[in-house]
């Protein structure tokens, strides 16, 4: 008995020393070739030494440096720290070389970081760790995860750890573990779980039937989800069309000006976003707000240009709608080339704020990308605001009066010229706002607008010129139909079909979905 206790004591005393040796022994491998790196990362992950965490994090973030003699350093802000001891080192960064990694190392790092972080006190880190282990699954993680699961109190993290555990069990040798893993994975609606199951199928013929059943169950859930996904994709495309078309619905739909420079206003809105962002770059507290600030800024910039264009050029052409087409085409050419000469022909970088990155999970596990969800909501808000502006404000009233019967409106004391300018500025400003949103999903280049102009006109015409509600329904309708056709017709043909369908539809109802009624329609 005594001897056993003694032995146990000795063992416990020896362990830290051995672990320390292993930690230090594994470390230099991180600065070696990709193969050596993978090995070292794996060792450090299994050792579970918390000191490895900052080093591996630095490696994955490209902050691990190497001196000529092989010593590893971590760049922490402006300081350089010795990776092994954590002590600051006095070396010029020019004398160091960055340790580079490739995807294989990155994969190993993810697994190792997961192993180290699963005991983190921060629940978000534990969640990320569980996901990382899920992807980097290995049988040796089973005890680690079992322990983590027992400790875990946050339900969401628990679920993820359970999933990671299931995935790790699947690659275990123990048949009972395997079956438990299969059952757990089969209860999800995750394509990754499906992929893992299928991967395991070939290696485990003895559980093939269970795997097939689990995959079938996942497939069923995925089919429903896929339909929801397609619907969302369609709505998202619709929101982009809506944003692009709304300004046109005002300038073309309400005023009858065929503004071929509309796409250029959208582009100017996107460039305003870039400029606001560049301006905010040096002011830290302003930085997160650059996108919200860009919305009014883009509105003002494009509205001002629109007003100038209306007063200077377009007002001379009222009553000759087709001629406005030629004039605005010329103006569009000039705006595009001016932007190209001022900002360069290259794409400009727009940084997405963190809340517009990544994927969000809606109820029923429907994944939606954050930027598109925001843009969808944004387009609806803008639509509501425009509707309110037209229906409820004095300006909206005057605008409707002027477009319906100009002479009578003038007789009532409305300054029609001012209303014209304001209406065109309003429509142009909305185009600018659309540019802010589009800068989050498309290129910011001088050609940005060209891609949207035809679709915008089609949406307005399809919905019925002069009807904002028609524009809304046309945009979402075309978006959803396009996305439903896409999987089996391909992206190009789907678009061709939609165009032909719209052309055919206009034959049946030449004034669109929601034709304007009354005398205004005759103009």
């Amino acid at each position, binding site marked *: 008995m005594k001897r056993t206790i003694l032995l146990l004591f000795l063992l416990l005393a020896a362990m830290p020393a051995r672990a320390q040796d292993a930690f230090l022994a594994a470390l230099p491998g991180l600065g070696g070739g990709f193969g050596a790196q993978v090995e070292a990362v794996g060792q450090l992950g299994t050792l579970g030494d918390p000191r490895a965490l900052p080093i591996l994090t630095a490696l994955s973030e490209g902050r691990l440096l190497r001196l000529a003699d092989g010593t590893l350093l971590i760049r922490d802000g402006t300081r350089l720290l010795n990776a092994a001891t954590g002590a600051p080192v006095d070396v010029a960064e020019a004398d160091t070389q960055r340790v580079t990694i490739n995807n294989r190392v990155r994969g190993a790092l993810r697994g190792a970081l997961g192993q180290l972080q699963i005991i983190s006190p921060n629940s978000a880190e534990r969640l990320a760790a569980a996901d990382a282990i899920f992807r980097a699954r290995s049988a040796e993680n089973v005890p680690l995860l079992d322990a983590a699961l027992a400790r875990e109190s946050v339900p969401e993290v628990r679920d993820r750890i359970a999933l990671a555990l299931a995935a790790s069990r699947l690659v275990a040798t123990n048949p009972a573990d395997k079956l438990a893993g299969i059952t757990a994975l089969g209860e999800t609606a995750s394509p990754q779980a499906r992929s893992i199951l299928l991967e395991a199928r070939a290696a485990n013929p003895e559980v093939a039937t269970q795997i097939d059943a689990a995959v079938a169950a996942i497939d069923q859930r995925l089919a429903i989800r896929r339909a929801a996904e397609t619907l969302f994709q369609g709505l998202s495309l619709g929101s982009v069309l809506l944003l692009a078309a709304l300004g046109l619905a005002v300038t073309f739909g309400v005023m009858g000006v065929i503004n071929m420079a509309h796409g250029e206003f959208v582009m100017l809105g996107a460039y305003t976003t870039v400029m606001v962002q560049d301006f905010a770059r040096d002011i830290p507290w302003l930085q997160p707000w650059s996108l919200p600030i860009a919305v009014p800024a883009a509105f003002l910039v494009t509205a001002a240009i629109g007003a100038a264009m209306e007063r200077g050029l377009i007002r001379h052409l009222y009553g000759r709608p087709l001629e406005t087409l030629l004039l605005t085409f010329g103006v569009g050419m000039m705006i595009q080339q001016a932007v190209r000469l001022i900002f360069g022909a290259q794409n400009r970088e727009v940084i997405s704020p963190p809340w517009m990155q990544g994927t969000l999970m809606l109820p029923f596990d429907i994944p939606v990308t954050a930027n598109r969800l925001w843009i969808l909501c944004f387009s609806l808000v803008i639509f509501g605001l425009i509707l309110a502006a037209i229906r409820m404000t004095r300006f909206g009233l005057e605008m409707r009066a002027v477009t319906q019967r100009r002479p009578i409106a003038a007789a009532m004391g409305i300054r029609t010229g001012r209303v014209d300018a304001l209406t065109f500025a309003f429509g142009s400003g909305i185009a600018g706002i659309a540019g802010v949103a589009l800068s989050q999903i498309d290129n910011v280049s001088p050609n940005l607008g060209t891609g949207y102009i035809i679709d915008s006109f089609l949406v307005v015409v399809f919905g019925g010129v002069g009807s904002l509600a028609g524009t809304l329904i046309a945009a979402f309708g075309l978006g959803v139909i396009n996305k439903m056709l896409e999987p089996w017709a391909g992206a*190009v043909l789907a678009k*061709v079909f939609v165009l032909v369908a719209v052309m055919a539809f206009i034959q049946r109802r030449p004034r669109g979905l929601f034709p304007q009624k009354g005398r205004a329609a005759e103009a």
Partner: protein
Amino acid sequence: MSATTLDTPAPSRIRLGLRAVMGVVVVVLATFPLLNMLPQDSVFHVSDFLVSVSGKWICYAILALSLDLAWGYAGILSLGHGAFFALGGYAMGMHLMRLIGPRGVYGHPVLPDFMVFLGYQQLPWYWLGFDHFAFAMLMVLLVPGMLALVLGWLCFRSRITGVYLSIITQAMTYALMLAFFRNDMGFGGNNGFTDFKELLGMPLNTGAARASLFYASLVSLVGCYLFCLWMTGTKYGRVLTAIRDAENRVRFLGYDTTSHKLFAFVASAMMAGLAGALYVPQVGIINPGEFSPGNSIEAVIWVAVGGRGTLVGAVIGAFSVNGLKTWLTSAAPDLWLFVLGGLFVAVTLFLPKGLVGLLKGRAK
């Protein structure tokens, strides 16, 4: 669209004047290939480049003429005339591709190169017959004509006019562009057709072939001009102009406006197709870019710059805008879009009747 402010038929002296301008343009052009044969240092020598580029402008002039017939006389502002032009070009291109025969890089006796490396086993059915010149020429006229017939019938019957019609025609050319970009269509996708060898037994890269094509284009231009002149001068032409100015009133008078417009539209599309067919062997390439809506709008601009509803105006517009473009894209590669854009703005604002209007306005 409300009634336009265009003049009633111009005083005959002016009309004769316009015809004289057209005559001068044609005669000057006709001398180009001849002057090209003069020695290089002669003052009257016309360079090879000017001959080849003006051959191309003549095709544009035919396109502008066809558009003027539809827009200036029948009031149909087509923003898709480039599609008819391109279809004519494609029909000619298919003929030229078939004539390459086994001279392609892969040496296949029948299949064009692009079909060989896309793995086609045999010629698609719609390529059959294009090895015959007469059949190809027929298609040059028929394909654009049929498309115009179908589209026009559907639109005019539903009384789609003005802006709506313009947007529909624009959507048509856009849809065709997307469709032709697809490699699966069997029209060579984005690369389209290039590397033509010969036409009617004539190798295309010789001066003689260029001169022949130049004269063929010029004769076509004159032919189309005379046809338009004749057509707009007849009673039919007067009704057409009346439809342009007040369609409802003409219909109430008992005229079948649909068939009147349809005839003009189809004739116009066929002319555009012919222009495209003459264009392709001269520039040596046809690709879906020709369908791009911007090209069609540009053609409208030529007509507007020259002066719509005058025929000669369309021709002058096509020559002057394209001449300017050719010159400026070399002389001011960074700034030419400003000049051209500014020109369009200035013309719409200050010269609503185009360059020809300048002439007419002074005459009054």
